[in-house]
């Protein structure tokens, strides 16, 4: 850990595992949304910018999600920098949070955006079922990895001396 509690003569900084986890999750979700935009929309051109079967509510939710993602990305990095500056970062928790965010967004996108709101599909002109399974299983794996890392980070913190 790079941020052990300081020596007694220095004003001690308190490590904040909960906040580290939350900031990691915020960055993870925003990064996954950005990856989706860059890889599948811009590079592969699999997703469509606008799908004519999209209902109005889908357009609305898509716009909100997209805008929130950009703000979350910026806010996440500044919150992260703030944790580091205050020596309050718990790296294991931040990492766990990152995976939780990545997986949660991937699953949300795969189930709510693609299937329930039918914003767009993963790919057009092909049978989309295997793509949907791959997409959602990948999200689930990331989410489970995040949960495992969270449990492990909690155990690690538990074995450390109190006061952190």
């Amino acid at each position, binding site marked *: 850990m790079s941020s052990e509690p300081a020596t007694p003569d220095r004003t001690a900084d308190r490590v904040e595992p909960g906040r580290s986890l939350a900031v990691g999750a915020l960055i993870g979700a925003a990064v996954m949304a950005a990856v989706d935009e860059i890889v599948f929309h811009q590079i592969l051109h699999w997703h469509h910018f606008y799908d004519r079967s999209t209902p109005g509510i889908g357009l609305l939710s898509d*716009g909100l999600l997209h805008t929130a993602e950009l*703000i979350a990305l910026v806010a996440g990095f500044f919150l992260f920098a703030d944790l580091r500056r205050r020596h309050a970062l718990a790296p294991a928790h931040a990492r766990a949070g990152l995976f939780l965010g990545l997986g949660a967004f991937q699953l949300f996108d795969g189930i709510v955006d693609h299937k329930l709101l039918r914003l767009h599909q993963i790919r057009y002109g092909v049978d989309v079922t295997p793509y949907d399974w791959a997409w959602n299983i990948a999200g689930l794996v990331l989410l489970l990895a995040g949960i495992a890392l969270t449990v492990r980070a909690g155990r690690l913190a538990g074995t450390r001396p109190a006061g952190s």
Partner: protein
Amino acid sequence: MTLTAVHPGHTGTGLFGPAVAALVLTAALAYLAAATRLRRRGDAWPRHRDASFTAGAVVLGYALIASLPGGPFTAHMVQHLVVAMAAPLLLVLARPLTLTLRVLPPGPVRRGLLTVAHSRPVAWLLFPPLAALLDIGGLWLLHRTGLLAAGHGRPLLDAVIRGHVLAAGLLFTFTVCQLDPVRRRWGLAWRGTTLLAAGWAHAVLAKSLYATPPPGTTFTDGDLHTASQLMYYGGDLVEIALATVLAAQWYAATGRAYRRDRLLPHPGGAGAGGDGRPGLTPRKWSASGG
């Protein structure tokens, strides 16, 4: 009728573009002169603000008088992105009001400007959600009513529309960034939420233009699609820049509070090096940066 050019600026008719371009370039020269005067008398005024204001004035002037690339609707959208979003950001980042107040000698002009800046109507205008409504509401009206088509061939209406686009863009950016001294300061929550809502409305309008052109206009599909994506992703860039301005303000404010807390002994306890309890009780790192 095919609306081949919605802008007089694009076709060269109308005095609005050249007049505003001349005005804003004059403002840039005045800015540079004022900043130089400030530095000569020993005040600190960072050079990047000069660069920002000059860049804002130049791109604004260019977008108003040059013939822009792409189809007519794409050119319209490039102009929207520059006039309503990018140029206002560059101008506002240079803190023009602060500079003006610093450079003006005490007297009726300076007093008058302060009176206006601190007046109640201006305070209302600088309420972030109202500024956003004037800006994005106007954008929706322009693209979702017959206004865009109506402005074609009516120089006066067109000048009013484009004057509003520029003024509302400046107002919105000024209010969200809140870098200059005004009567009422709005917290980060107000300004951040306003940015989120405005970005949302902008993104939805941009995407809807992909499939549905503004009423009364007939643009080609290719032109419409390019313009729509340009509006969507160009809006993203400006939104990221605005979010960075807000986040940097928060970061600086929490940094100041943090250093203050570390320097002063904790009021409730033993202070530094006491009984092993952390001397620093983290404040609520509230989102009220100024």
